[in-house]
């Protein structure tokens, strides 16, 4: 699923540093827990 890894955008001007992108992918229902065991009260 994680095909978008760190990407560095090409830039035209040498003066501007390239931007580093982070890909944050929200998990799907099937990847997350169904347990709600109390961790507090």
């Amino acid at each position, binding site marked *: 699923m994680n095909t978008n*890894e*760190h990407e560095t955008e090409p830039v035209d001007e040498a003066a501007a540093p*390239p931007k580093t992108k*982070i890909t*944050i*992918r929200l*998990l799907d*229902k099937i990847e*997350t*827990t169904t347990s709600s065991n109390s961790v507090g009260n």
Partner: protein
Amino acid sequence: MKFEHRPHRYEDGTIRIGGEIYGIAAEIADPDGWVWTALTLMDGTRSREEIAERLRLAHPELPDATSVVEELAATRYVEDAAAAAPAGLSERELDRYSRNHAFFRTVDAVPRAHGWEVQVRLKAARVVVLGLGGTGCHAAWALAAVGVGTIHCVDPDLVELSNLNRQVLYGEADVGRPKAEAAVDRLRSVNSDITVTGERRRIGSRRELDELIAGYDALALCADQPTGHGLRVWANRACAAANIPWAGGGYSGPLVTVGCFAPGAGACYECLSSGEEARRRPGTPVNLGGPGVIATSAGVSGQLVAHALLGLLTGVPVPPVGTIQGVNLIAADHHVWVRHPPRPGCPVCGTRAIGPAHKSTREMTEKDAH
């Protein structure tokens, strides 16, 4: 890093962040380890500039350490550890609502300055709870406990012994007292940091409802009189005219539902109910009456109303505006989720009627794209 969202790294370097709950949990691909280094440095002891500088030293090959830090700082998973608590809440309130703070901070999709913004909004909010029966008692209790600053309770009836199986604000000593009076006493004893008022009153017309909600920010509709759609239609139109959101809940035996509505956002109650009517076999009797109610069904109903209102008032969590949701307490696989488009030309929510979304939802949800 917010403590409850602290990251974990898998063997392949992928980072899990935000715990394990659907709607919050996420993964970050991190083949070169930059993100993990940055997250590890975000432990509340350093400024953004210091984090970027250390990240640059640890990963000289990284093209732009500052933008890595800035991107992470713009997510729901981090907060400013140096931010002071807001001036609007007393020491006592910071203690009383400490678990609220942790909850809202966990579910909030928007990074904020100090994490108490939701509580401050709740304190400023003014809500009418119409109907103090099974649904209304639980809803009013929840709104008071969570810290809604002003709550006005309205019901025409007296407490009866048969109410005590589900109406959580009353005790045996209250039998014979006006519900509005007993509820106000009880709610003030639950939370003396808020303002609770009440009146013994029956709402008999749309005009009376208009008057009742004037000056309030939201309506919790928990009454069943007049029966049928009457009261809900009045609420739909009165709240649209007043430009305030509302939530209405109830039960039909084990089926518990809550509708969540805001002017200028999504379908209105009348559009949803007409969409549901169109799905039914013609001639189906919809209200057979008297299916009974117990503490659990009334409790779920009232709590769902209160929860919807919290979202409508603060945007946290983002409320399911223009929908009816619910549960069937005898069928675990039956989750109700009613959605229909606005009817063309609907005078309440149709295109001609759309004004600016009401303030709270608009302000608090526009930035929730991520």
